[in-house]
Every structure is written in C-alpha cells, then in structure tokens.
C-alpha cells in the first residue's frame, strides 16, 4: 500500500515509532527502578538479620523481679526480662512461697531478646514472707 493510499505520512510513522521507543525505554527504566527498590527492601531485612547475627551473641538471660504484691487475695505482679541477645524459648518460672508449701508455675512459649513482660501470680498464702523463683528456658 502506498503512503498516499494509507493516508499516513512517513513523519507520522517516525513519531509513532519514536513514541513507542520512548515508552519502552521508560518501561525499562521503571523496571530497573522497581528492581533496585525491591532489592533494597530485601537487603535491608537480610542486612539487619546479618548484623544481629554478627553482633548479638549473648545467649538468652531471663530474670524475674517482683513489682507489686497485693491482697488478700494475694496477687504478685512480676516482671520477666530477657537481658540476652537471643530469644528465650519454653520459659518456665516456678514461684514458691519461702514459708509454706504453696507454689505457682508460670509458663510461656517465648520471650524475645531484650523484651520485658508482666505477669500476675495468684497465691492463697501470704507471699510477703518471700518467694523463691526457679527459672528454666532454652535460648540460642
């Protein structure tokens, strides 16, 4: 088909082709930009975990502190803190009255590194005479 018959001029074709090329070029640039941004997000997460791996080496270290005692009925509020750089797993805290046979078992599945949690322990007897805590956990 001749140019006259098609009703299109060579210049129009050129402009259209140029437009398509520009659009394709923008698309490629955008694709590279998206790839770079995506890599940055993934690298940030991987990097943070790597830094933690390189620097945070202290194992989990769980401590219990009595915050408040109220009653009767007796309630002891305790603060459980993990001072290590590793999370504690399968944490089991056995709290026994110093004077008496009563004891309470507090269990939870995990305590992240440097995290603090508050829990309440309920006793029938008077805990103001003192408490003995036995703490067990696993932590990398």
């Amino acid at each position: 088909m001749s140019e006259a018959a098609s009703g299109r001029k060579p210049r129009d074709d050129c402009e259209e082709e140029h437009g398509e090329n520009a659009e394709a070029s923008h698309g490629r640039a955008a694709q590279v930009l998206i790839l770079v941004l995506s890599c940055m997000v993934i690298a940030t997460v991987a990097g943070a975990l790597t830094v933690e791996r390189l620097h945070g080496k202290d194992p989990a270290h769980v401590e219990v502190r009595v915050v408040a005692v109220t009653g009767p009925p007796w309630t002891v509020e305790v603060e459980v803190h993990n001072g290590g750089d590793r999370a504690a797993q399968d944490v089991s805290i056995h709290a026994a009255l110093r004077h008496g046979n009563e004891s309470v078992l507090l269990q939870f599945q995990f305590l992240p590194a440097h995290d603090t949690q508050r829990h309440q322990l309920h006793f029938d007897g008077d805990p103001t005479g003192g408490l003995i805590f036995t703490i067990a956990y696993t932590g990398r």
Partner: protein
Amino acid sequence: MLPARAICGQGRPDAATTLLMLAHGVVCLVDAAWHRTVRSTGSALVFGVALLYTMEAWWDGLELSLAQNGLFLGASLLLCLFLGRYGFNDKDDWRGVFVEAGEALLIGCVLSVVCLLTLALAGPGYPMRANVGTILVMTIPFTLGAFLADKILPFLGSRMMNGNGGWLDQTLRDAAATIAGGLFLGLPVLPTDEVPLMAIGMAYPHQMALMALSLLSSYIIVFASRSRKEPNAAPLLGRPLAETMFCYAVSLLLALALLGFVGRITSQTPMSFAFAQAVTLAFPLTVGGAAGRLAA
C-alpha cells in the same frame, strides 16, 4: 532444542541421525518430566503451606506413632489413586494413576523435608522419630497438592503478560494481586502464636534459607510452572526476576504491616525479632501472592 523434523534427513537415517533423534527424544522426555515436577511443586506449595504454620500438625508428628502417621500417609495416597481414577484427573489406566501418585508422593516428601529443615521444624536437634513423624505429617498436604497440580494451577489461571496498560498499571496490578493472594493464605496464620514461635526457633542460616525459598517458590509458581506453549514464557533475567523480587519485597512490607497491626511488632520489639517474624510470615504471603498473581 531442534525439532525432530529438522534432524531427520531424507530417506533412511544413518547411525548418527538415529543417535541424534534418540538424544532429542531423551531431552524432550527429561524436559517434560522436569516441567511437570516444577508445576507439581508449585501446586503443592499453594496447597500445603498453611499446614506448615499449624502447631497442632507439628505435635501430631511428635505425638502420633509412626504407624499412625504412616497410615495417614497411606490413606492420602489411596485418596490420590481414587481421585486420579474416578475424580478430578479421571485417567483410564491404573498404571498412569500409580505413576502420577508416586511422583506426587516423592515431590511431597522432598518438599516436606526442605520446608521443615528451612523452618527449623525438623533437623539434627530433634529426635529421629520426631523428624520422621513431622515429615510424614507434612508430606500429606504436599502430596495431595502435587497430585492435583493439573487442577489447581489451571483453576488459578494461566497468567499471560500481554503488556496491556503502562508499567505503572502492571506494577500496581502485580502489587494488588500479591497483597490479595497473600492475605488469603497469610491472614489465617497471622493471629496465631506460630509465627513468633517459628521466628524464635530459626537461626540465621534458616532465616536466609527461608528468604531464598520464598523467592524460589514465587518464581516456580508464577513463571517456571507455566506451559512452554503459553506466550511470554520470559527468561529468568528479564521481567520475572524484577517481578519476583518486587512481589517478595511487597510481601515483606505487608508482613511487617500486618504484624504491627495485630501488635506482634511494637516500638519495644527488637528490630531483629521484628524482621525475623516478617521473614517467617512473608513465606505464606509470598506463596499466596504468587497464586494471586496467577489468578489475577
């Protein structure tokens, strides 16, 4: 790969041509088997990933006897045979059904081992009986998923990148499909204790391996499992790489947002633990997101 016509000469083929034809046939068979395996793996991941994030399933692996676990696995294999003969696949010959079920069982078993090792739910630190039990339990959904690949993946759609719309449209469409699909698989997992528990159980190599497994799963489900006959089966270092990375980044950001929304990540949460949880949750989000992109 050369088509058979191209390597066949006129008249009686000589020894070299016969060898070439044989080699071509072997390559075709291996290629088809590999493609079927990859496709089944993608389907198995979509079907089985939710059970990986179920604590009770881990306990079943530990608490039930090996005989019970084996019985469940046998029952699921029988279900595959039944479905293959009379259900979805509706094959005429038992031999084909047996071969397919066997392949699905093998894929399910390998996938179960890979996922459990990556998520630190099995490994050298556990007793052998517990390892075997957990692997058996997790093999069941993966086997069913692999067996139903021909039904699951077409149901999700046969994605074609036809280039309609600009790059922004396509990018936003990918992001929306990733989020929608990710939420479909990830939301049931989100409020449970499994995510932080798994995040704690995973050491650094597990976390890196899980990131790699998430990226690989996304690529397998969306790109590698597509039929060669479908248009735009693009090469790895083209759009698929950018899209896979982009959708994993979206899944990671979505995981962080969701964990923050339900209070799993607060200002008090150590950064490393927040990211460890995000990587853990991002796996089902990525698998769901990949399935969502297939369906979109």
